[in-house]
């Protein structure tokens, strides 16, 4: 555990030693895979969980388990308090104006679907336009395509350049009085690009369009501030943020959420039901039908506590150090091409190697204990842009170390050797 004064020092210059200390909080990292120490570099898919989060979830079931918002008995009261306290933690974490703006859902995907269904059905009509970007993850493409099919609205796609950055001139040209909504990733899962959200949101608002931000890849790495950003909706998942799977958050401006119809009907989202008419509950309960993932919500609160104790600035600085270190090594390795070289990036190193398919790279690395993601990373349009079928992707978290990057590159060299791809060859 870091003391407050240590955390303050870390914010200025994080010594690499601390990652080794943070590692000790993650029991899953203390194992070998195929006889080699596990090097977990698939954090953009999901992060590992610290002991504090695991303990929190276990403790909930051991000491607190009860349904919330309805019981008059003690356990139910305490469970409700813990659940609502977690909502307060999320509100602080994203600096929302009001905890009524925090809706618990299953994950970022459900958050986006909620907006597409509820806001979309109420506010998007035939002839309207929805602006997306070429770097979106499938979760931030498909719900809008479905909405377009249902309403007759049309998609407009902002292209990216070969560094993997949005082409803002093209974005400006795509915007029109018909644009009702802009859906954009804060950080690209396939490229690591950090998008200039403030600029995008300002432009969208000038056209009276609302902005939904897919923050699944940003929340674990960047300080969030909903009020400063002024975005209308922000979606993220707990499991990429050192929390449990099956829990996520939709932030939405209260005035927008208030005007939206419910997404699902059921218990807790109503205030009065007769067969003639149902009165909906107030925010945020209107959007939380049925018994929620109570343990997941409370453990997500524990994950946010954990992250805040270390400090997102310290985490970001550490991951940036790893990215710089890995990028330099990649540039010294001919035959390896980085996909995504934006100036503003989080710790994602996506690459291809001439003469080797990413799947083969993934299998060989796995035998060295190195876990990476291979494939199209649920971002097929990004692969199409770079005219490749897939990438290999190493993605970093707070517990990764420079030694693990060394292990990654040793394994890559071994793979190249096996495939007869000469690491010294110039391309």
């Amino acid at each position, binding site marked *: 555990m870091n003391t407050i004064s240590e955390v303050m020092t870390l914010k200025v210059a994080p010594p690499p030693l601390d990652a080794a200390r943070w590692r000790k909080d993650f029991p899953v990292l203390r194992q070998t895979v195929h006889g080699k120490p596990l090097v977990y570099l698939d954090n953009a898919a999901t992060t590992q969980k610290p002991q504090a989060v695991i303990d929190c979830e276990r403790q909930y079931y051991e000491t607190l388990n009860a349904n919330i918002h309805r019981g008059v008995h003690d356990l139910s009261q305490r469970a409700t308090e813990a659940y609502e306290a977690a909502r307060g933690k999320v509100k602080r974490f994203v600096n929302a104006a009001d905890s009524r703006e925090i809706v618990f859902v299953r994950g970022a995907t459900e958050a986006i679907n909620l907006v597409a269904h509820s806001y979309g059905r109420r506010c998007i009509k035939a002839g309207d336009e929805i602006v997306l970007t070429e770097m979106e993850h499938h979760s931030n493409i498909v719900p809008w395509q479905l909405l377009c099919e249902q309403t007759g609205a049309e998609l407009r796609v902002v292209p990216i350049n070969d560094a993997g950055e949005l082409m803002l001139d093209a974005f400006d040209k795509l915007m029109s009085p018909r644009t009702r909504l802009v859906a954009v990733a804060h950080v690209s899962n396939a490229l690591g690009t950090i998008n200039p959200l403030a600029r995008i949101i300002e432009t969208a608002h000038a056209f009276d369009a609302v902005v939904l931000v897919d923050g699944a890849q940003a929340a674990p790495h960047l300080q969030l501030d909903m009020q400063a950003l002024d975005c209308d909706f922000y979606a993220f998942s707990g499991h990429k943020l050192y929390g449990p799977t099956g829990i996520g958050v939709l932030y939405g401006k209260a005035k927008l959420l208030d005007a939206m119809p419910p997404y699902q009907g059921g218990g807790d989202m109503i205030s009065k039901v007769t067969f003639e008419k149902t009165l909906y509950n107030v925010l945020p309960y209107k959007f939380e039908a049925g018994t929620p993932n109570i343990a997941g919500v409370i453990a997500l609160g524990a994950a946010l506590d954990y992250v805040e104790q270390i400090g997102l600035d310290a985490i970001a600085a550490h991951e940036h150090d790893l990215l710089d270190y890995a990028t330099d090594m990649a540039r010294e390795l001919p035959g390896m091409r980085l996909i995504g070289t934006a100036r503003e990036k989080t710790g994602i190193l996506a690459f291809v190697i001439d003469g*080797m*398919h990413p799947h*083969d790279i993934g*299998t060989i690395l796995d035998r060295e204990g190195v876990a990476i993601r*291979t494939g*199209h990373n649920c971002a*097929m349009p990004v692969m199409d842009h770079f005219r490749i*079928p897939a990438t290999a992707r190493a993605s970093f978290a707070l517990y990764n170390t420079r030694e693990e990057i060394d292990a990654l590159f040793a394994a890559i060299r071994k793979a190249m050797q096996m495939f*007869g791809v000469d690491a010294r060859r110039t391309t």
Partner: protein
Amino acid sequence: MGDLRDLYQEVIFDHYRKPRNFHALADANRSAEGFNPLCGDRLTLYLDVEDDVITDASFEGTGCAISMASASLMTEHIKGRRVQEAEKLFADFHELVTHEHGTQSSDLGKLEVLGGVREFPARVKCATLAWHTLRAALSRQTEPVSTE
């Protein structure tokens, strides 16, 4: 524990780097597309079937060493075979890559080099993509086949 050398045998590298029958087939009367949405591998298989005999076979596509070598070896192996034999080969091959000892009475020949896949369950779909596509082409299935 499967060894990487069992998976990546020299024959596989050879067929990956120099895939045989890697072209479109002008007089194909059967074809099908196969796709593995998980990894993005895709291939198109072309067959010429005359009087219930596969007289010619070829493919085009992109994928990993396992999927490309499997497709290359398969096209070599099915030429001149009856459709019914090809169905039997499909079953034998599936057995080879998923079961401990494979099939005893198989007539898979060089395709046996893909037996190492059985120790790498995540790669079974790579090895079988071409074969699922073959079955689709033989049954004149028009929708692309998916390994998902």
